[in-house]
């Protein structure tokens, strides 16, 4: 063995590899695009300590104490008062639709009880479907309770400044009282798994035919393009439903996730979500020239889906631009649908704001797919 000749061959192979790589523009794009995308997402978009969480207040006693309390809540940086509510029903509605993360309820005779030293109770209801999104905010409450009123308790009231807080903030964790992470993750996983498999499998299904040359045979038969497309999609819809059922069974019997809402409604929205992902896979397959490219495209879509949808990190922790992107992804809305139906017992009216975005996404994707499909025939 001549080491010089071996080195020359090694160099020859390396050169050939580089030339081939430069021909494959999508792979080249991945080499540059993936690190940039990850840097942007992890560096700027993700924040596991979400602040300025939307909070509604129900004030039934307007006094200097309550005003101070609310101001200090906002000063923690975790709570942002977005709405005043006048009834319990309205507060429940806001929580159920996910419009607010918290509702603070200050009882009618708060000030009187406080002055009497009766340690009145402020009720703070939290949407605890995602424990990670609320835990820091709730932790900050402790210090608020300790010191907030010290400045107002002057003169004869100064005796009320003991080590103990003069009032109690009682936290009511709604939908997930014990703050069990699985309650949030397991239903969310359903969306993640469906996104991954549905987009990838349909993407591969069409490109495989093209790559192997069998597409030509298919086109030479009387089968129409629409029949081919639909026929290719049907098995994956069934696979999607099977996957979904498996996860639901696991959620129920292994993780004991509560099933508050209608299963029928859940299956209906899941079908929509599956269809949206399948059409995306189909559209990818009309653009991709081979299976590798279809896989790369899927990955390009999957990464932001998992990071910006609120699956891994709290949605409200992300900056505005990331939330805008997140809201364009079907997974974001599907997560809210599943968690809403399973944990909160949402009905169709309550979930509608997250149903139509998925429909819109699908319409756009199908239109794009149809546009590209024509080109590949001729």
């Amino acid at each position, binding site marked *: 063995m001549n080491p010089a000749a071996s080195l020359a061959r090694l160099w020859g192979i390396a050169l050939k590899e580089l030339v081939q790589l430069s021909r494959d523009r999508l792979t080249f794009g991945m080499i540059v695009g993936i690190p940039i995308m990850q840097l942007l997402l992890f560096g700027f978009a993700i924040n596991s300590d979400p602040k300025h969480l939307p909070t509604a207040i129900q004030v039934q006693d307007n006094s200097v104490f309550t005003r101070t309390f609310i101001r200090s809540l906002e000063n923690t940086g975790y709570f942002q008062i977005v709405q005043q509510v006048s009834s319990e029903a309205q507060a429940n509605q806001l929580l159920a639709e996910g419009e607010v993360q918290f509702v603070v309820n200050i009882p009618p005779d708060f000030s009187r009880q406080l002055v009497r030293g009766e340690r009145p109770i402020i009720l703070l209801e939290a949407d605890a479907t995602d424990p990670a999104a609320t835990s820091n905010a709730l932790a900050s409450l402790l210090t608020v309770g300790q010191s907030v009123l010290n400045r107002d308790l002057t003169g004869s009231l100064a005796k009320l400044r003991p080590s103990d807080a003069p009032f109690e903030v009682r936290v009511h964790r709604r939908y997930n009282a014990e703050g069990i992470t699985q309650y949030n993750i397991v239903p969310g996983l359903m969306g993640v798994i469906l996104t991954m498999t549905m987009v990838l499998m349909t993407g591969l299904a069409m490109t495989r035919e093209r790559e192997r040359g069998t597409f030509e045979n298919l086109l030479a*038969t009387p089968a129409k393009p629409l029949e081919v497309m639909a026929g290719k999609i049907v098995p994956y819809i069934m696979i999607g439903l099977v996957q979904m059922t498996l996860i639901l069974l696991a959620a129920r019997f292994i993780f004991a996730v509560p099933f508050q809402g209608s299963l029928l409604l859940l299956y209906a929205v899941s079908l929509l979500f599956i269809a949206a992902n399948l059409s995306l896979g189909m559209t990818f397959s009309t653009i991709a020239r081979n299976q590798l490219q279809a896989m790369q495209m899927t990955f390009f879509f999957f990464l932001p889906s998992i990071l910006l949808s609120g699956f891994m990190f709290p949605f409200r922790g992300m900056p505005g631009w990331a939330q805008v992107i997140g809201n364009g992804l079907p997974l974001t809305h599907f997560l809210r649908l599943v968690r809403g139906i399973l944990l909160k017992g949402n009905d169709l009216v309550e979930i509608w704001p997250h149903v139509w975005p998925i429909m819109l996404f699908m319409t756009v994707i199908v239109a794009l797919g149809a546009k590209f499909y024509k080109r590949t025939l001729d």
Partner: protein
Amino acid sequence: MTLAIDVRGLNKHFGDKHVVQDLSLQVKQGEIFGFLGPNGSGKTTSIRMLCGLLTPDSGAGQCLGYDVIRETAAIKRHVGYMTQRFSLWEDLTIRENLDFIARMYGMKNRKQAVNAVLVKLGLDERRNQLAGALSGGWKQRLALAACMMHEPQLLLLDEPTAGVDPKARREFWDEIHQLAAQGISVLVSTHYMDEAERCHKLAYIARGKLLITGSAEEVIASQRLTAWEVSGAELQGLAEQLRHLPAVEQVTAFGSRLHVIGGDAALLEAALEPFRQLPGYQWQKIEAGLEDVFISLMERQNDQQEVV
């Protein structure tokens, strides 16, 4: 005599490439029509236009009486198209492949039809073998059977015998002749001259243009080539010298013989005269073959292209 294919002035562009230019073609019923030409000359594109897979940019015509532009669905139902590359599903078994194709054509007695084909092919015992596990010759027979199942009146075969051994090729052609005898028309593209000679009629296409049509004899006669065969020792040096003669178009070595071809008989004879005086060589005038004609056509086309 009815025409199975009758198209005039078909054109197809891919981007700024004019892939097929003014293709006019008439194939009679029951005729085996050979489609010849170098790689990339537009044969496959032409065939795809005939079977409704591609829409011509311009031109008109009929396939089995159906309009090639408006009635592609009907054409697909009555034409059997065999792709250049094996395009059945390698991860399906032989039977599953045939069954799928039968479904696509909406055949009524599907099971019987598939079984009949399996028996006829002698594949009945291997029906559950994956198509990908078949040898080249068997794959080709399976592909032919698949495109014959819906009993088409016209077969379009795109280089059906590429990479198939001589015996399998001969059997394949025997079958094609049987089908033609039953009145089925066949358009077949090929690079093999022995196959070209088994066609009733030939067409030669180069750079998207149909240059010549006719029977093998007509094609040969039309080019008026003169051929000499020389045998002897030390042919390599002789071949080099002959190639430089302006009157000589081709010099081809066949073992211990050379074929010398020219377009002008008198000029060639005069040019060869000094060499025929050399000792140790035997010279003999022979008939030019189909291959000589096609190579000559190809080279003239190249020369023209360079002048343009």
